[in-house]
């Protein structure tokens, strides 16, 4: 099963995926939870900043930019 999981930062633009595991800790984790990012949340990669990082994601209808460091701690399953 684990093979289907990729890091959110590797999610191709325009694709959606479902959050499967959140490995961030402390304040970063709480921030993501506040934004509604929990197991099962559907996330879409929308667009990248001019230098390629951060990336904007559609999380529950809001557009949230995450740096690749954060996005690599979120494992998702491609839809």
């Amino acid at each position, binding site marked *: 099963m684990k093979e289907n999981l990729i890091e959110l930062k590797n999610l191709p633009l325009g694709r959606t995926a479902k959050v499967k595991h*959140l490995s*961030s*800790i402390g*304040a*970063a*984790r*709480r*921030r*993501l*939870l*506040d*934004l*509604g990012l*929990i*197991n099962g*949340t559907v996330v879409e990669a*929308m*667009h*990248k*900043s*001019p*230098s*390629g*990082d*951060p990336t*904007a994601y*559609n*999380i*529950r*209808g*809001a*557009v*949230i*930019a*995450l*740096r690749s*460091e*954060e996005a690599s701690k979120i494992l998702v399953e491609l839809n």
Partner: protein
Amino acid sequence: MGLTNQSTGSSLLGNGTIIDRTSCSGFIIALSGNPNVGKSTVFNSLTGLNQHTGNWPGKTVATCYGKYKYKNKNFILVDIPGTYSLMANSAEEEIARDFVCFENPDATVVVTDATCLERNLNLVLQTLEITGKVVVCVNLIDEAERKKIHIDCKKLSDRLGVPVIATNARSKRGLDELTDAVYNIALGFVRANPLQITYDETIEQAIELIRPAVREVTGGKINDRWVSLRLLDGDASLLESLNKFLGFNIPDNSILRQDLKKARQFLEQNGINADQLRDRIVSRIISISEEICRDAVSFGNKQYNDTDRKIDSILTSKIFGIPVMLALLAVIFWLTIAGANYPSELLANLLFGIEDRLTDIFISLNVPGWIHGVLITGTYRTLAWVVSVMLPPMAIFFPLFTLLEDLGYLPRVAFNLDNFFKKACAHGKQALTMCMGFGCNAAGVIGCRIIDSPRERLIATITNTFVPCNGRFPTLIALSAIFIGGMANGASGSLVSTLSLTAVVLLGITITLVVSKILSKTILKGLPSSFALELPPYRKPQVGRIIVRSILDRTIFVLGRAAAVAAPAGFIIWIMANVRVGGVSILAHTAGFLDPFGKLLGMDGYIILAFILGLPANEIVLPIIIMSYMASGSLIEYSGMEQLRHILVSNGWTPLTGICVMLFSLMHFPCATTLWTIRKETRSMKWTLISFAVPTAAGIIACFIIANAARFLGLA
């Protein structure tokens, strides 16, 4: 975000007033909500111009409040910081929670974004856990309708158990219903039956393990179920607040301490550690939000944010993102420079005309010459100078910048630039605090509160002064027009000075990044913290409101401060220039003393003295320079750029002097207001001194290198 009313408005001075329940009769209404939901529009629409700023007891954070009347009752609306949650993850969330929790507002209005209701319900549900006296305001309903999102407020209200009102604060739609609902809740005419969130069995049991002891300690003054849950979650800041506001010292209560230990053990035994507990609490709230929204919200069109995507695909694209940003900046500068000239002359004619009348009156009254000198040639003329040079650029720059802010563009700037800040080990939101610095560095420093990590907040605070504030723009504009634009002619001159001003700002940004990096590697070591930035939907700006608010809140305020400083400065300089010791004025003595140092940096003693005397406000640096050059020690009447150029050049200025003054203006100690704000925000003398020293050192180094390199190469 950006130059908010709060950040550049009169709130900077609001340090004395306190909302005191006993002295002001009225119902206290808390206004909370996620960031970017139009909370301030609701606030402005309800209170109009009847706004105040002040601190509420116990904390030293300025909170904006305003008053309104409804059905002959007074209401005091308190604007608390916009947050995603009340779980106290940041200083702002703590403030928001403490207000809702401990100030006992008669009602709490939670403003939500109709286009993204599900996420917003998180805050609503968390608020309902604390208090039932809640009114939910579903704002931006027009935008939701345009995006074919239908919200059934009746159903929402049934589920949440509190009134739900759809509004569009910009067009005042729904505001009457909102004030009516608030009235009914605050006066107790409607009893809310708030939704009670239940967690899974294990957590519920753990809550019950400590709840009796919590009830015992708090004596019904606060919702004990909620406090129990927060204690289980290990919310240390709540313990502090309970102690501070209600005098409950929970760690000292041995029964409660034991019960808490037991409850935690119970959770651990059932496989729930601290992180998992938080996850389960949040997940539960989110799943309730999801469920409620499935019921009450329907989407007519799944691709509802297509337009925003298209705009973003240009404004943040690899090819156009940065160039469009620079072009926008340059266009704003160009409009400011080109547009300010003519009104500046008109104002000068008007104000100096008044001076002539005043002089006539003085003469007809036989007032001694020195009194006329001090009051008119010293004080009034300086004031007139500052007003005619500063007012027009501000009255153009502020509304234009507010327009960008209102459109929702500023977060895109932060998004575009974030990678640079990451490489400098700084926070991406620093780009936003820098934008606030364009208006006023003191506002930028206060804005640094949006950065959660203390290390990155300090970096943003110390480097904020590298963004030229509004007080320095006129100096930079004038000098770039004279010494850089002056080399070209006519229309191309204002183009050249626009470009050079843009270059100065870019240099400021570069220096910010370099200094941030150096700070991160030396006295503020550390790695970049987590970063999640919301890019709110683009919104149609309200041009009328922008003009009114940017004139009222920003232009008048900044101008008032400059005038308040310029008038006494004019007074002092006139005296310094006219009191002679050994045949030479005090001004010349001091400037002579500073001259070798000034020369070393490509400037002269008068210029250095002007920067020192300009500590209260940067606006008066150039006027002091001019005044000092006049043999009489008073300003000449301002009649245009050409005259200014003539005075400077005849006092030995070269293009190198102009460039060095511009550099030093960009990089020197922050003004007194900013320093005072830094002291207040960091609560540390050490960091205030560092904020003074770092930019000054940078300016000295830069000017020294430029001046001596130019001399060495024979360019000057």
